[in-house]
């Protein structure tokens, strides 16, 4: 008998192997309908479904959220509404009482509708301790600019910032603006010449039409923000322009409430990219396409499939639920995200369509955004360390099966796998066929990296940073004020209605709770080839070392970056 796991060229039972693949092709199928043009599953077999245990955990999360809402609702005044509704229901048989109850509900509801999800209101949604970012945001108002900038490098969307060797022509920030923002003797020219300017660019959101929620119009901007790394090594915001057209006002930290409004516009724009582009697009649906091609085109005896299976666990199931429950009109996504339902889905679709493996590999991404010199960049530092560990493990593992590059080039299953990822009747991804061991290791490691650390940072950091709507508004409910407007009132008006802010809290709470697997921890029997065990052990040792290193780094950071601690990295996208 042959080795149970081997590349197809060396498989003595090729016919049985091909038959197995044929049967996979019948059990897994693609559709491309939502978001339009994006590959996802039309059919998959039972073994890809959530386990009953996982379904139960999810129900428990919902229950906990409900209990928590009732508890925290009381302290923010919303509990009265809930009680009034319940009383109304209970007395529904008695017309007069019901009318009175409904009237009291109406009064209470109107009171709540008038209330906005201000920091104070939203702080009360948390049951128990606030996450560190929220705590410092609430306790140390003087630190808010620094926390704002920190989220470009150590939040749940650390993928946008890039070095600005030049400032975009239509971003009209001047030396005078800079002088108002930074008062330590630094200058715009010096910062630029020394390569200490960084740009946050959300102008891709220009023209995105916004929807309505709870009868209120939602607002969204497509801003630029300029950041400087001070000579002391601190990243601070310098100026924000709300849109990509010259002539739009440039606002600096010296502008009080107008500055707060400008930061809200940035944080809201960033929340769209976090959720739609990087989370749904570049994690969930990207992994769905990889999962389908892997399950269909690689034999169960293929070493790449054995390695990737844990990274794709429950991915098809969660994405079907995302597509059919979340990507529908009336869902939390529709209600809370700023764009209209269709524009939100269009952003997800564009994220998948524009994906390019060549520029997405972590080292390439860091180089492309020119952010190697930033002194503090938790995602870059910890991310590249984890990437290195994964890449080394994958490379050693593949070395067991591919003795040379020709073995990769000659592997028909890998060729069919890659072809299907790129095919219009398959994944539609910009992924070239790997022709040598390096390229195959990059591709496999990338899948593990996105399913693992990248998604963990994006997903599991959400409760800590994004459940608190005033920090990361999913939509704005009023316009950014102009000079001369009552800016304090405008900021208040930009906050979501309290009920929506609470819904946002629950939305991110739920998503951060399911933890089914861990990177590098394999179930017994995951690898039947005995040669793999020592490689796994070495991988685990490396991850343990990184755990200590990251813990150490976190002590010195403005805020911890805990979601990429190896013990916290979930192996697959399943939440």
């Amino acid at each position: 008998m042959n080795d149970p796991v081997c590349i197809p060229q060396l498989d003595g039972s090729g016919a049985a192997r091909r038959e197995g693949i044929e049967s996979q092709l019948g059990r897994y199928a693609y559709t491309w309908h939502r978001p339009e043009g994006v590959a996802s599953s039309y059919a998959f077999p039972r073994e890809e479904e959530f386990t009953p245990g996982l379904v139960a955990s999810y129900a428990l999360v919902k229950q906990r959220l409900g209990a928590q809402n009732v508890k925290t609702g009381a302290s923010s005044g919303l509990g009265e509404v809930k009680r009034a509704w319940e009383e109304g229901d209970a007395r529904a048989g008695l017309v007069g009482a019901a009318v009175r109850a409904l009237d009291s509900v109406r009064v209470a509801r109107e009171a709540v509708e008038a209330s906005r999800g201000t920091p104070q209101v939203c702080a009360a949604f948390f049951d128990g301790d606030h996450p560190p970012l929220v705590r410092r945001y609430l306790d140390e108002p003087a630190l808010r600019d620094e926390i704002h900038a920190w989220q470009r490098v150590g939040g749940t969307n650390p993928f946008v910032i890039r070095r600005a060797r030049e400032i975009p022509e239509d971003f009209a920030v001047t030396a005078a603006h800079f002088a108002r923002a930074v008062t330590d003797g630094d200058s715009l020219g010096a910062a630029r010449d020394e390569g200490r300017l960084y740009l946050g660019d959300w102008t891709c959101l220009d023209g995105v039409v916004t929807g309505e929620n709870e009868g209120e119009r939602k607002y969204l901007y497509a801003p630029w923000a300029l950041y400087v790394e001070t000579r002391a090594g601190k990243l601070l915001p310098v100026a924000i322009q709300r849109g990509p057209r010259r002539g739009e006002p440039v606002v600096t930290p010296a502008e009080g409430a107008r500055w707060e409004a400008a930061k809200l516009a940035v944080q809201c724009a960033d929340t769209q990219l976090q959720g739609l582009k990087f989370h749904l697009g570049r994690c969930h649906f990207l992994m769905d396409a990889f999962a389908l091609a892997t399950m269909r085109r690689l034999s169960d005896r293929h070493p790449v499939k054995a390695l990737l299976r844990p990274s794709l666990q429950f991915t098809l199931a969660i994405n079907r639920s995302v597509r059919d429950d979340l990507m529908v009109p009336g869902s939390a996504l529709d209600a809370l995200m700023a764009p209209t339902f269709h524009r939100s889905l269009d952003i997800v679709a564009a994220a998948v369509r524009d994906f390019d493996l060549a520029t997405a590999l972590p080292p390439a991404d860091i180089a492309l955004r020119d952010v190697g010199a930033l002194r503090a960049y938790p995602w870059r530092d910890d991310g590249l360390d984890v990437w290195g560990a994964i890449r080394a493990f994958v490379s050693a593992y593949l070395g067991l099966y591919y003795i040379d590059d020709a073995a990769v080039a000659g592997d028909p299953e890998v060729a069919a796998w890659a072809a299907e990822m790129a095919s219009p009747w398959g994944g539609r991804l910009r992924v070239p066929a790997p022709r040598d061991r390096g390229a195959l290791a990059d591709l496999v490691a990338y899948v593990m990296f996105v399913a693992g650390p990248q998604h963990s940072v994006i997903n599991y950091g959400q409760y800590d940073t994004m459940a608190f709507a005033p920090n990361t508004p999913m939509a704005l409910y009023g316009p950014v004020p102009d000079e001369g407007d009552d800016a304090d009132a405008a900021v208040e008006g930009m906050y979501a209605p309290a009920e929506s802010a609470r819904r946002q809290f629950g939305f991110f709470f739920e998503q951060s709770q399911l933890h089914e697997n861990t990177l590098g921890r394999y179930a017994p029997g995951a690898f039947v080839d005995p040669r793999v065990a020592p490689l796994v052990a070495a991988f685990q040792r490396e991850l343990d070392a990184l755990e200590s290193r990251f813990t150490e780094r976190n002590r010195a950071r403005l805020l911890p970056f805990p979601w990429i601690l190896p013990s916290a990295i979930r192996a697959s996208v399943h939440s």
Partner: protein
Amino acid sequence: MSAAPPSIPQRAADRDRRAESLASARAAYAYDYGYQSLCFVNELPSSEKFSAQYIAQGAAAGTRLKANRAAYAAAHPLETKLSRARSLSDFDGMFPVLDAPAVAPRWRDDAVFAWQRVAGAVPGVLTGVDRLPDHFPVTEGHFARALGGGDSLAAARAEGRLFLVDYRVFDDIPCGRYPPDDDGGLQKYLPAPLALFCATPSGLMPVAIQTSQRPGERSPVCTPADGARWQLAKLCVQVADANYEGITAHFAETHLVLQAFIMAARRCLAPDHPVLRLLAPHFEFTLAANQYARDTLVVVNGTQDRILAPLLPATHEVLRQTLRAVRYDDLDPTLDAARRRVADRGALPTYPFRDDGEDLWSATRRWVEAYLWLYYLSDADAAGDVELRAMVDEVASPEGGRLPGLVEGARVDTRAGVADLVARVIHRASGHHAAINYNWWDWMGYAPNGPSVAVAPAPGSSAPADEAALLATLPPMGAAWETIEQIFNVKSIAANRLGEYPEGFADPRVEPLRAAYARELAAVEARVESRNARRLVAYECMRPSRVTASINS
């Protein structure tokens, strides 16, 4: 219909009432994209529902089908869904009660094969070419084998007499099984062939077929000199054509195209708007027919899942891609013929779909213009019509019809532009749809000619090609029956007729114009009849008396 004469919005007597009626129309016609990201109406307004008369027509067709099937079943008691025809005559026996499709006796003729490109079930794919795609390497040798001496590929090319049909939309498409819910069923196959035709003094003739988009041993270039292999190659083209009918030419390019216009018109034009008054009869039952199709045909294990070849999600993908690709100018048959380079009567003298279609089109265009001129007194009136502008924008809008190409270049700021838009919508709903819908039975009701279900792949150059291979490719009897039933139902329902406006017009000035239109249509009818006398096969589906005013089946 309200009795008040229509008005464009800037001349509306009671603007508040008009705004109210628009608001309630928008509520009644809410978009629903839940089905496959296609735009449907959320809840079918009762005014859009099928009438009792309509339902009776459908029931009558059903009764005839049942009688036909019962007569057949009595003679074939052991037949199952997966039974295979033992000879081609088994398919001839499927019409004990119904009239057999016209093609049945002549389906093997090359001239009839070519005729279907200009007057068949899918008459709008043929495209003039001055050079062949690199992946379709037809040589002078092939040409000589196909058409004999005297003519040449080079001469035909120079004279603009080469025409191509290309089914690349199906390249590599994943296919399902028949029946889809049965693991023991048969794998379906859908080729993506290319076929070259040449206009000769004796009419359009086929030159060569390649059964896939990739030249080589597995799909060599075939010519009429290749005997049984040629018959199989033609069958590949017909299989692709039958699927193209079901997905692309019919459901996407007529039903769903109209749906986008109907939704936008109902939501953006007040009931008193002269354009909506004119268009409403051309919208009759279309939304209802489309909801019905959505809920019964294009669903898991529905008719399209069963009798079209692609896996259902791939069918849906082709639907979406086709819809996104339809351009505003495609709706004008003269511009469409020019784009496809088939407008030159010298190079391609006989093209019934083009010729009868353009006659219908110009009659309709003149009528629309005469009607609209009653209300748009100048270009300024057109430019100031905010409702019409909103309708066009909504067809394109991501929150509306999501079909920017469908109105790309529509100029509703001039009177002529408005007339173009309205006439194009009417022609697509009437003449164009009739050509696709009411001609289907005659060509594809007969399984050997155009089966949408093929259960063997196209043979490579080494595989045997004979009558047995032909039979092995043709559908099992169950699929053939389901196809017959579907197509017969569709051709049997015709709820209205072009040029007839049974509810009349509130404005007395319209009637003389309508009467003139009726006279023009009668003249078109006469011309079609005289052309039919000279045609290889009479082209009946675009005779004005056979053309329905709206898409209703």
